[in-house]
C-alpha cells in the first residue's frame, strides 16, 4: 500500500468509514460532512500514509480527529448527555436469524455500547467492533496504549454490569417464581 494507492482504495473503504462516522457522530448530516472532510484531508496528506500502516485504521484516525476537532469547534464538551436517536440507527430483527434470542441479544449489545461515554465508546467501536488491535486503536485515537487499555477495561466493565445485572435479575425472578409456586 502506497500513498498513490489511496485514491483507488477510498471508494471501497467508504461503507466502513460511513458506518464509523455515523456511530461516533450519531447524526447523518454530521457523518456525511465528516466523511467528506476526512477523505479530502486524507487525499491531501496521502504522502503521510506509511507502507506499514493499515489504510483503514489511518482513515479511522482522520475521521476521529476530524470529529474531535468539530466537537471542539462547537464547544461541545460532553456528547454523552445527548439522547440517542433511535429513529435512524436501530438494530432490527434479522429475517434470516433463526433464533429470536440472538436478535434480542444483538440489540442489547448495541444498546450497551451506544450508552457508553464517548471516549469509551470510541475504543469499543474500534477494538470490539472494527477488530483493530490495541496498538492500532491507540494510533487512531492518538493516545498511549495504556489509555486504550484503561478505557477498554472501564467500557467492558460498564457493559458487563448491564448484562450481569440482567442475569442476576433473571435469577432473582426465577427464585421468586419458585417461592411463589411452592
Amino acid at each position: 500500500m502506497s500513498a498513490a494507492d489511496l485514491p483507488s482504495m477510498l471508494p471501497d473503504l467508504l461503507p466502513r468509514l460511513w458506518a464509523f462516522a455515523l456511530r461516533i457522530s450519531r447524526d447523518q448530516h454530521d457523518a456525511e460532512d465528516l466523511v467528506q472532510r476526512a477523505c479530502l484531508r486524507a487525499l491531501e496528506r496521502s504522502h503521510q500514509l506509511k507502507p506499514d500502516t493499515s489504510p483503514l485504521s489511518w482513515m479511522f484516525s482522520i475521521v476521529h480527529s476530524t470529529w474531535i476537532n468539530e466537537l471542539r469547534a462547537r464547544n461541545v464538551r460532553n456528547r454523552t448527555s445527548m439522547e440517542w436517536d433511535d429513529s435512524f440507527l436501530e438494530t432490527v430483527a434479522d429475517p434470516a436469524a433463526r433464533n429470536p434470542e440472538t436478535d434480542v441479544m444483538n440489540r442489547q449489545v448495541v444498546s450497551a455500547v451506544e450508552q457508553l461515554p464517548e471516549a469509551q465508546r470510541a475504543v469499543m467501536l474500534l477494538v470490539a467492533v472494527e477488530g483493530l488491535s490495541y496498538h492500532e486503536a491507540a494510533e487512531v485515537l492518538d493516545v498511549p496504549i495504556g489509555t486504550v487499555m484503561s478505557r477498554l477495561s472501564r467500557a467492558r466493565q460498564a457493559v458487563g454490569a448491564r448484562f450481569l445485572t440482567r442475569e442476576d435479575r433473571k435469577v432473582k425472578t426465577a427464585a421468586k417464581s419458585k417461592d411463589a409456586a411452592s
Partner: protein
Amino acid sequence: MNIDDTLLMAYVDNALSPDERQCVEKKLDGSAEAASHVALLRASRLPYQQAFAHQKLPPVPENLKRKIEQMVRAFASNDETIEQYGGGIAVPMQGRCTPRVAPAWLAVAFVAGAFGWAGLLRLGPGATPDIMSASASLESQGASPWVRAAANYQQLYTRDTLAHLDPDLRLSERIVDEIRRDDGIAVSIPDLSSIGLEFKRVQRLRFHDKPLVQIVYLPKSGGSPVALCVTKEAKPDHAIAAQDIDDMDVVTWRQAQQGYALIGKTDGMDLNMLGKQLSEGGGEQLY
C-alpha cells in the same frame, strides 16, 4: 505480578499462559474487588461484531459517493497535486483578533469610493477593460502549473466542506506567523466581511515542494467558497488577469516576487474587481 486492568482482561479472554493464569487466580483469591472486576469483564464477553453487523444503518448517501468519487478522480488524474502540511483544521476561538497594520504586499484599499466593496457585488459583467486585455494575454500563455493545481484543489471544496467550520483565529494567527517566518511569504489575511465573505481558514500547502498559502472565505449569503492563494514566484510583476480553469473562475496577478490567485465559482461575486482591489492594496486585515 500486579493485577491491573490489562492483566484481568487478558485473563477473562483466555489470553494468558497456564502459569500466568495460576498467578492471577492466586491474586484473585485475596481480592474481592479484583474478583468483582473479573465478573464484570466476563459478562462483557459478548458478540459485538455480530451485533453491530445487524445494526440497521442508513446507506451511504449517493451524494456522498459522488463527492468522494469526484475527489478521487481529481487526485488520481492530477500529477500536479497539492499537499497539505502545517496547521490543521481550525479549532474554536473565543474572540476576534484586532485588525493589524497590513504588510506592504497586500495593502488593499478597502475603502468606500470608486472601488468600495459594494462595487464588487456583481450586477452584470464586471470585468474592466484592462482586466480583459490582461486576461487574453494570460490565456494565450496558459495558466501557471501552480495556479492550475490550486484551482483543481479548490474544486474539491463545496460550501458544505466549510459551512460548519468555525474559524479558529488563534490557530490562524499562528499559521500566518509560520508562513511569514518559515515559508518566507509575506502574507496577511484580508478582512472581507464587509462584502459578505467570511474568513474560514488559512492553510499551508505545498506544490512541487514549494510553499503555497490558501486563504478560504465563504459567502455569508450562500454560494461556493472563494480562495486567495499565494506562493513565491521569482518573475516580473504582472497585472491582474482573468481566466477559467474547468469550473473555476480565476484571477491572477504577481507582485514583489509573489504570485496570487483568487479562485472561486463566482455566483454573485465579481472576482475580477475583488482581485483588482486586493492587488492595489489597502483595507482591513484580520492578521
